[in-house]
Every structure is written in C-alpha cells, then in structure tokens.
C-alpha cells in the first residue's frame, strides 16, 4: 500500500468504520513504514475523538417540546381539507345557476329578435301608419272603399300647372323607369306647382274626382316641408293590387291579378313623395 491508498482509507480507520481485514492490515503496515502517514492517522483519530465529544455534548441538549402551534396547524389543515368539498359544491351550484341564467338570456334574446322581425314585417313606415289611422281605410274592407264619399276626404288645395311642365315631368318619370306610368291626369297636369305645399297635401283635384273614390295621400319615403316647397306633379298610374298591402291597406285576394289606380305625387326634384289609391 502506498501513501495515496493509505490516505483514501484513513477516514474509515479513524472513524472506526468497518474495513476489510486485509486492507486494515495493510494500513497498519504502512503506518509503521511511513512516519508522515502515521502522524496523519494520529491527527485523524484525535479529531474523531474530539468530534465524538462534541456529539455527546449535543446529545445532552434538550429538544424543545412540541408546541401548540403544531397542533393548531394540524387542526387548521384538517379544516382546510373539508372546505374544498363545500367550495366545490358551491361552485357546481353556481355553475348550474349560471347555465340556467345564460339559457334564459338566450331565450329572451331569441324572443326579442322574433318580436322585432314580426313587428318589422308588419309595419310599414311609421308615417304611413299614422296616415292610415287618420283616414281609416285600414279598417275598411275593399268594398267599403267604394262607399267613401269624396266629401269625407279633406278639401284639396287647387293645383295648377302648365301643360308643358306636365309633359316634361312625365318624360322625366319615364326616363327614371317609374313603372308603370300610365298617363298623367290632364286636370292635375294643369295644376301650378307653386300651389302645392307640404302643408296642404293634394288629394283629389281632378275635375272628375267626384266620380272617383280616393284614399288620402300617403307619404312615400321621407318627405319634409322643404322638399315640397317647390311644388310638384301628380301622375296617375296603375299598380299591382299587392301595392295596397304594401301600404297597409286591405286587399281583395279574389282580384289579385287586377291592377289598381293610384295618383303619385312627384316633387320638383322628380322624387315620388306621396301616393293615393283611386277606385
């Protein structure tokens, strides 16, 4: 055994650990041969002795008694273990309630959408509704329209226009594909545009209006007083009967393939502003 081998085993020998007998014998033999290794072994043994003394002294030290903190911690830990189950129950209940609330909200939304759709499909423009309410042709059946007397209709303002202007407007309307434009009423064509204002909307102004039954003028789209200030032109047209429904008027479905006469009022800018149906 050389010094290196001796040094690698010196700790076990000094600490009185179990060593193979042959190795132990070799170490002791080397100690006899090498003075430095013998001194080293002596130092190691001395150190082991001192460390043992220190260990003995540490063994005599009193271990602190178990504090109440540990018992409190154990109890609180147990309380925490039981709490998650309650929390989970509460969470599941809250989840169910959330799902129910969500379903109710979705149902409410669907109902609102359906209601909106129905209302929109039924309603025409709100002004047309008001017009209908004022003249009451809505409540009347188609046969009763014929019984409406011209005197029931508000008195029309006199409308005059030059013949040239009426021709020009008719041509303009044709170019704008106002279909079907049948023919301008001669008498209306002669109405002056200055006499037509937004306040006194034209109704039945034809000379032979006594023979015709008309509804009130119903606005077509948005028309303000400023757009009607420059006057306009009244044009007699024929429309499919379904146009009655579009304006909220009752329609006789037995005569669905027939056409209905109407007077369309065009403002100075050529836009259709009002309509009335004629029978």
């Amino acid at each position: 055994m050389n010094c290196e081998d001796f040094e690698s085993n010196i700790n076990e020998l000094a600490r009185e650990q179990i060593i193979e007998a042959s190795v132990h014998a070799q170490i002791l033999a080397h100690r006899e041969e090498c003075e430095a290794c013998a001194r080293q072994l002596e130092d190691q043994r001395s150190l082991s002795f001192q460390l043992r003394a220190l260990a003995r002294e540490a063994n005599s030290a009193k271990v602190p008694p178990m504090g109440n903190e540990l018992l409190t911690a154990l109890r609180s830990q147990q309380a925490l273990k039981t709490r998650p189950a309650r929390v989970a129950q509460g969470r599941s209940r809250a989840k169910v309630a959330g799902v129910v609330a969500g379903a109710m909200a979705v149902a409410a939304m669907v109902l609102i959408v359906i209601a909106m759709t129905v209302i929109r499909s039924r309603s025409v423009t709100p002004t047309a509704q008001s017009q209908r309410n004022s003249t009451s042709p809505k409540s009347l059946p188609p046969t009763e329209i014929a019984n409406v007397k011209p005197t029931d209709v508000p008195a029309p303002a006199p409308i005059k226009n030059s013949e040239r202007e009426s021709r020009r407007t008719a041509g303009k309307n044709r170019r704008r594909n106002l279909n079907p434009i049948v023919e301008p009423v001669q008498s209306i064509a002669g109405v002056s545009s200055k006499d037509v204002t937004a306040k006194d909307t034209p109704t039945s102004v034809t000379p032979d209006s006594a023979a015709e039954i008309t509804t009130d003028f119903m606005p077509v789209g948005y028309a303000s007083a400023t757009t009607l200030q420059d006057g306009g032109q009244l044009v007699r047209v024929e429309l499919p009967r379904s146009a009655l429904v579009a304006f909220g008027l009752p329609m006789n479905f037995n005569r669905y393939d027939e056409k209905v006469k109407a007077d369309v009022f065009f403002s100075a800018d050529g836009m259709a502003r009002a309509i009335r149906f004629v029978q």
Partner: protein
Amino acid sequence: MSANTDPSDSDLLQSMMAGDEAALAALYQRRARDIFRFALQMCGSRALADDVTQEVFMVLIREGHKFDAARGSINAFLMGVARNHVLRRLRRERFYVSMEEDSENDTATHVSRTSESPLDELSRTETIESVRKAVLALPERYREVVVLCDLQEMSYVEAAEILGCAVGTVRSRLHRARALLIEKMRPAQEEEAVDVKSARCFA
C-alpha cells in the same frame, strides 16, 4: 415485542395526515431529536435550532402528502427539509453578528453540572468549544457532511440520501472536511503549546 407493535413512521404520517394528533406527537418525539441536533450543530444557535425543528414539522403537516416512500425514508425527508431550512436561515442571517451569549451560558452550566474535576472539565469544554467553532467555520457543504457522518454517526448512504448526492461525493467531501478541521485546529493547539512553554519559562 414492543418494536413490532410500534407503528412505523409511514403509519404515523398517514394517521397524522388523517388528523390524528397523537400520531403527530409520536412522530415528533421520534424524529425531533435528530432534526434539532442537526440544526444546532449546523448553525450553533439553540434558538435557531428550535425554530427549524418547529418549521420542519409545520412543513410535514402542510405538505406531508408530498412524501413518497419510494424515494426515501421519512427521516431522510425530514432531515432534507431541515437542511433546506437551516441553509436558508444561515444565508439570511449571514450579515448579523452573533452575541455568543448562549454558548457562554451553556459552557458555564456544563462546568457546574459535571462531577469531574474542574480543571479536566474546563479543558474538555475548551476542546469541545474549539471543535464546535472549527465545525461552524467550515463551508456549508463540508459542515453538513461532518454533522451527518461524524456527529450524527450516519452512514454514507443515509447522508447521501439526505443531501441528495452520490455516496462518493459524501465520502470525498468528508475527507476534505476532516482535513480542513485538522488544519483549523492545529494552530490553536500549537498556540496552546507555545503559551504553556512561555508560562514555564516565565515561572
């Protein structure tokens, strides 16, 4: 007979985790001593060792479910926790200066307590004190192997399990630690010898 009837550490731990306070007390009585000694020898402060012992069992109560018997014994688990706490506290309190009042008081009580002759006892106490200081002066990695293998008389395997390293690492660290201890204690011994000589000459 009684050893067979005593529940194992694992049984005690399971009972403790189920809320059995007696199991906690039994486990504390069985394992607190090693933990306290390890902490005391590692940091040299009784107050710190007390704290570490309590903290280790607090961890066991809170995180006892993390213990895996396949990875080692409960003693190794507890000592590993104690080691982590001690090292953390030592690093935290590195910047504080010890008053060393406790050690002086301990020395005084030991002297008065023993029945040996006062001179022998004083010499023994001084030797122990010098060894303790030398151990405490070691770097942490060497100190812990000395504490575990020499002071707590654990095997290399047990120490390796606690430290989480290879057995060879423990062996080499212990070899180096003991060499350092001899170096540290040699000047003190030589100084004592010089003092004695000068005293004789003076006389």
